[in-house]
């Protein structure tokens, strides 16, 4: 399988707020590279590959499998579903956006109601609150109540597209791109003898506050960890100093919550191996699972690689496949040399 195929399988699966399809897909793709895989009480997917040497250090590779989405809170008398976001949904992208509800029976498509043009003059350019934006499915109230009771999860409707030669657009690239990077790393290493044991976690509930990774890191009990997430790729309207560059390679995180020696080693290794790479400096924690992993048990030396991504938390995020592959190559190089860093 190639990165594009992995991504397509991962991104078109549903994984918001406890939906399991994406985790099942990720486990299926992970299993061939692992000695064993498992799913824990929260739904985190775990895998272990032993190197066969006693006392070998355990390195954890982590990416989150959940995505932003919605949960049904109520149904109004006109038959419109009202939802609360799961994670930091970009409300600017919601009017006329397409969603899929995963309730009883087959997934049900719907569209966010948009302001009719003749009402637009009075409303100006403001957006209603997400809870006030109804979602239209066409289903009558009585049947809708059965198909999508409160608590039903929804995601943006999957549309996976190649954009230009090396880029793809989809929902949920945050953080299926990270999952694909871990798979790309494992694929490079599949026939190599290693000197470290490898644990892999595809964590749930990152978008709700990095909840799954804390539990997964406790169970894995690693000696060192690398989390792979996405971060901001520059667009012309953004502050250049706060962004990475699309197709500029993995963004190596430097932050108080991360292990500085590990950050430096990853960056230096990328330079040595001619892997495109950039730095991302954060002044406190990172807002990713890396923070939760670093504080698991008695503390874990943790690094963070971020894949540059445009249009985060919208129905159409965008990444460059080469950044995912370069992230996989950098991790593979680090693991192949034994995960050494002082």
């Amino acid at each position, binding site marked *: 399988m190639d990165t594009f195929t992995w991504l397509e399988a991962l991104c078109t699966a549903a994984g918001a707020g406890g939906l399991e399809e994406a985790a099942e897909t990720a486990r299926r793709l992970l299993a061939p590279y692992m000695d064993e895989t498992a799913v824990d009480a929260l739904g985190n997917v775990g895998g272990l590959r032993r190197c066969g040497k006693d006392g070998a250090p355990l390195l954890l590779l982590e990416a989150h499998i959940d995505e932003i989405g919605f949960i049904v809170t109520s149904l109004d008398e006109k038959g419109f579903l*009202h939802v609360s976001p799961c994670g930091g949904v970009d*409300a600017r*992208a919601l009017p*006329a956006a397409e969603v899929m509800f995963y309730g009883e029976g087959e997934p049900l498509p*719907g*569209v966010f109601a948009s302001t009719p043009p003749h009402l637009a003059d009075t409303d100006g*350019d403001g957006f209603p609150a997400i809870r006030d*934006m109804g979602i239209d499915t*066409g289903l009558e109230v009585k049947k809708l109540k059965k198909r999508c009771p409160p608590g039903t999860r929804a995601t943006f409707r999957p549309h996976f597209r190649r954009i*230009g030669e090396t880029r793809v657009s989809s929902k949920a690239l945050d953080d299926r791109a990270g999952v694909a990077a871990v798979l790309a790393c494992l694929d490079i290493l599949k026939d190599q003898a290693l000197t470290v044991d490898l644990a892999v976690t595809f964590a749930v509930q990152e978008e709700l506050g990095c909840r799954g990774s804390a539990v997964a890191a406790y169970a894995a009990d690693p000696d060192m960890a690398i989390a792979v997430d996405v971060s901001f790729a520059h667009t012309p309207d953004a502050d250049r100093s706060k962004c990475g560059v699309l197709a500029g390679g993995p963004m190596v995180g430097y932050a108080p919550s991360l292990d500085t020696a590990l950050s430096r080693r990853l960056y230096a290794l990328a330079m040595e191996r001619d892997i495109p790479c950039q730095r991302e400096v954060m002044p406190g924690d990172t807002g990713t699972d890396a923070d939760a992993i670093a504080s698991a048990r008695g503390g874990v030396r943790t690094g963070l690689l971020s894949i540059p991504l445009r249009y985060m938390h919208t129905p159409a995020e965008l990444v460059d496949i080469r950044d995912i592959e370069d992230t996989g190559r950098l991790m593979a190089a680090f693991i192949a040399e034994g995960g050494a860093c002082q």
Partner: protein
Amino acid sequence: MMTHLKKLCALPGVSGQEDAVRAYILHVLRQCDAVAEITVDPLGNVLARVAGRKRAAQPVLFAAHMDEVGFIITGVTDEGYCRFAPVGGIDPRVIYGRRVLVNGHPGLIGGKAVHMCSEEEKTKAARADKLLIDIGAADRAQAEQLVQPGDTAVFDSEYTRLQGGLFKARALDDRAGCALLLALAERQADYDFLLAFTVQEEVGLRGAGAAAFSLSPAVAVVVDATTAADTAGVPEDKRVCTVGGGPVLSFMDKQTLYDKALFEHVRTLAEDAHIPTQLKTLVAGGNDAGAIQRTGPGARVAAVSLPCRYLHSPSCVLAKKDLTATLALLETLADHLPADAP
């Protein structure tokens, strides 16, 4: 009719570039036995004379517009993005985060991540002149191989069946009208009638005037889509019309004060044939009737509209039964000449 509609909604046809839609319509008309004469005028309007069982001294004109709202590319940036302007009335709130097709090439409209937005930026829709289309190009040279200023873009949104007999697609305004008129041409009517598939409706009813001049009808019926605001949070007096309520008859909109006798003629025919109709209950919007009414010596006009939710957005929603009822009404109209003007 649904086959025509699905095919028509898949074709791009932003005002001024209706070529693909026109080609499909010409292809269908040429296979209709009753269609006696087809012309394409200098603006690109498709005009046809359809023979009925009996001659009509003053055949009724049925008109629908081929064009749709969309975007025109105004330039390419050094970074390989496309600058664009909306063509026709597009609410700025349905543009952000959307997938588009520029000359058939997939692209995205987005900006910096919501995480980096100020409170004001998060809650206000960005104006189109501040947004860019990302077509995956790395720089200006790559972008210019795919796109040139003056090219057009449409929302990338396919036909999807919703529940309750509703469906969602792009450009239902007014491909639905075009599909209905094609169905009308495929049937033997009692009297001769005229057809006009017009261009440039969305940029100010610019095609219909020329079409009406060439055909000089005494009576015209315009078939278009109109706003159904029967959605969450819209007060009763601003709903305009309701999806599923049948074809919408207009007495007045922002462009036209409709002919009273013709309005009654349409309403009576519908009642006699037990076809449900509803009134457009807000003086808003406008359609080609405004141009046809005031061309040459003037014409008596009526509007038979399809109640459509989320007009001018990528997710227009129509009910199949409204299409069926509208077709039945148009067939009755083609079989019954209105009384002469008082």
